[in-house]
């Protein structure tokens, strides 16, 4: 790997770090502009002025906002997420197990969505303009244009109301058998796979079509290679970079999807925790969850960029 590529990648990582700083700044100040005094809200209307003043001092609320931001950011860097306003438990404790749940859901979805989308995306590009391609394109546009909750509710209607295969909106906590685990994960995974795959199929198809348009693929077809051979042997190896880029970018749609899916299926992950936090206005919890999601999202996007750099032979 040349120093030039290393420079490019360091540049990407540096800009991701700067972006994260700006994002955490935005998240902090968006939540800090909450009207009303936090100490008064926490203690209620009946609190004595002395108690409010004491709490304000203890929470460092008297300091300028910028110092509070710096303190909060350093806490985050050391793994201190603050204490929940609502039940006085360290936020890290609340998030812990639920973070694993969300990652597990995301992992399973990735496992299903990637092979499915690659197959559909590449074949659609191979038979571009055919009826098959048009059906795939129309379906993906359809899925992209409707809200995630509509896909979730349609899945419930189909699989539990009409077909009666799966339980409706409930997340059972008693899990004894593999079969039950399967039943619990089925609906959230189906919904998220739809949401993510639609994006991935579109991007994969576009990436392969871009490569098919290049002169060397044209030359391969003129040489007498079949359409299939031209795509699989000549075009595909050169489209690996853009496809990997497309996969990482589409996986970032998991962030939005997971918020809806965890809420509708009552799945105990961090997105559900955050939505509950919003209704109780538990700011430290919301800030921490928001930062976790932003880090995940940025990591995927930066990873996509780095892959694109590495896969481009002209830079390498």
């Amino acid at each position, binding site marked *: 790997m040349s120093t030039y590529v290393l420079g490019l990648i360091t540049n990407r990582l540096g800009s991701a770090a700067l972006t994260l700083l*700006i994002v955490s700044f935005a998240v902090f100040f968006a939540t800090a502009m909450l009207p009303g005094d936090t100490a008064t809200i926490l203690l209620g209307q009946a609190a004595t002025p002395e108690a409010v003043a004491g709490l304000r001092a203890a929470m460092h609320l008297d300091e300028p906002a910028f110092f509070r931001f710096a303190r909060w950011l350093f806490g985050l860097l050391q793994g201190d997420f603050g204490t929940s306003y609502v039940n006085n438990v360290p936020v890290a404790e609340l998030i812990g197990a639920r973070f694993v749940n969300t990652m597990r859901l995301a992992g399973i979805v990735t496992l299903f969505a990637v092979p499915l989308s690659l197959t559909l995306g590449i074949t659609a590009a191979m038979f571009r303009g055919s009826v098959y391609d048009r059906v795939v394109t129309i379906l993906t546009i359809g899925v992209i244009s409707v809200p995630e909750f509509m896909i979730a*509710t349609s899945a419930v209607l189909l699989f539990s109301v009409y077909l009666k295969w799966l339980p409706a909106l409930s997340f059972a906590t008693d899990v004894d058998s593999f079969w039950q685990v399967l039943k619990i994960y089925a609906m959230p995974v189906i919904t998220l796979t739809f949401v993510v795959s639609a994006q991935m199929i579109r991007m994969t198809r576009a990436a392969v079509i871009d490569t098919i348009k290049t002169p060397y693929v044209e030359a391969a077809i003129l040489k007498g290679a079949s359409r299939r051979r031209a795509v699989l042997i000549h075009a595909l190896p050169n489209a690996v970079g853009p496809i990997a880029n497309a996969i990482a970018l589409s996986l970032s749609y998991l962030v939005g999807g997971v918020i809806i899916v965890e809420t509708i299926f009552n799945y105990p992950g961090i997105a559900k925790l955050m939505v509950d*936090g919003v209704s109780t206005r538990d700011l430290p919890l919301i800030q921490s969850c928001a930062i976790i999601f932003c880090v995940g999202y940025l990591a995927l996007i930066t990873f996509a960029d780095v892959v694109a750099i590495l896969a481009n032979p002209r830079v390498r």
Partner: protein
Amino acid sequence: MTTSTTMPRGARYRFSWIGMIGFAIILFWAIIAFLAPHIIPYPVGEIVDEDYFGPMSSKLLLGSDYLGRDMLSRIIMGARYTVGISLAAVCLACFSGAAFGMAAAVIGGWFDTILSRFLDALNSIPSKLSGLVIAAAVGSSLPVLIIMLGVIYIPGAYRFARSLAVNVNTMDYITVARTRGEGIPYVVFSEILPNIIGPLLADFGIRFVFIVLLLSGLSFLGLGVQPPYADWGALVHENIGGLPFGAPAVIVPSLAIASLTISVNLLIDNLPKKIRDRSA
């Protein structure tokens, strides 16, 4: 008069029939939203069915909701909130985004660098997440929702307008205008804007879809439009209990959202190349 052109007008802007269908459905919802209070069969708050989650019938065309209120009336009124809020927000996002984007391209230098850096960073916050954080911080009254949805999509509109304007900015006629001594507002609005207005309008439509989806998603979580008002997302939220029975009260609002967003996408995908293309 356009008779001086050699081609008939129809040949220059030919809309495909799929685009026309999309346009017709958008127009339909726009008229419904505009006339809503005059065409609802029952007042939105009135309980007209003794049963809840009632089926479709000749009296209640789309059934009744979780309290036994007429679903058709609620969807007609919901069109006002979904279409109205989204339209106001998309105007805010696109007008300010495009103005800043064009200004950044023309002014360049530090102004461009800092603004681009900052807005790109904001763009890397997932939209639903920004929605949740802002809803938690300042609540979700109707004006707050409009401003919030608009602000969330400013960075995207900015980026799109800037990338178009940067290309136009290198043209000779811009140099001529600058040499003539024209100020920045003139260059932006009289030289650059007319040359990129087509793609900007297409972007307006796409961003409208994003905003409708985000607004519906937030309302579905119960964090968007608050009772007594209800947009289509909120209608799904309040009637979600009817899902196990397959009640029309859950399905119809979702279909309404889908019909609007898919139509906008169809219209934009089938716009004449002349309007849609960046090179136009």
